[in-house]
């Protein structure tokens, strides 16, 4: 498991280590089964095209989950994801690489909690942000530990 991140390690503007995903049609089918979302635009090319899409696209909720993984991987087990917000702006075609990225926008202490706000997003191979969002996490503090 990844090492633990502490509040003191984080500065505004800092980048979150990116997470690369390659959602294939097979992964979308697994996601359909695990999430119960069986909408055909996510696995049936003809159906997707009949609704005007260029092809099979990744589930928005899968992308939000990728971004949640970006955060939970980064904050480590001692951290807690308190809030995540994701807008699905662009479509990601099955088979296209997706990179989850993020940056710290604010750090502050509130009610004794060490909070960090981040902007997060998924990026397609053309560098377009297809799912921008934000997250708030509470981190462990070195000061609070001892």
């Amino acid at each position: 498991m990844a090492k633990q991140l502490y509040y003191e390690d984080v500065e505004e503007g800092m980048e979150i280590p990116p997470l690369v995903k390659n959602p294939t049609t097979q992964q979308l089918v697994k996601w359909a089964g695990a999430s119960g979302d069986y909408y055909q635009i996510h696995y049936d090319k003809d159906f997707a095209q009949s609704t005007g899409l260029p092809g099979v696209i990744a589930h928005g909720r899968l992308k939000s989950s990728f971004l949640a993984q970006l955060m939970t991987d980064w904050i480590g087990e001692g951290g807690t994801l308190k809030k995540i917000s994701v807008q699905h702006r662009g479509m990601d075609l099955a088979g296209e690489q997706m990179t989850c990225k993020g940056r710290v926008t604010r750090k502050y202490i509130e009610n004794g909690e060490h909070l960090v706000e981040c902007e997060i997003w998924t990026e397609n191979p053309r560098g377009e942000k297809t799912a921008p969002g934000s997250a708030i996490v509470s981190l462990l503090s070195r000061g609070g530990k001892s």
Partner: protein
Amino acid sequence: MTEGSAITDELRSMIGMATEPVIMEVERGAIRRYADAIGDPNPLFSDVEYARNSRYGEVICPPGFFGWPLKRGGMMELLGTIGGALFRAGVPRILDGGVDYEFFLPIRAGDILTSHGKFADFREREGRTGKMLFITMETTYLNQNGDLVAKARSTLIAL
């Protein structure tokens, strides 16, 4: 646009429509399948021994997973009703516009959650390709102790 306003009227009458409370059981296998579908190997989601020794004491859900409803119905049915109305009105495309989650407590395998969903709101906007409808759904999740564990607010875009 006449058909646009027809959709609007039907949808407006549906605002506030709520699901029956849905009981959801959080099972380890379902958590594992969910994590596997994301491609997230975090042992907190899949390794029972590992999770036992963590601060959670049990396998926890990846963010956004709340277990499976014991019975059909709930949000999927409500979305089906709304989707059906849109389909009949000739709006075939519904896209997931995004989601906001707020997490208050960890969700562990073995928890039994109760979710309450409702069709919160909708608004219309003129997009590049014509009229777009933004539909907002809200869900709250309580655990077996009656504590609020999470809230979700999701947006669907119909065009």
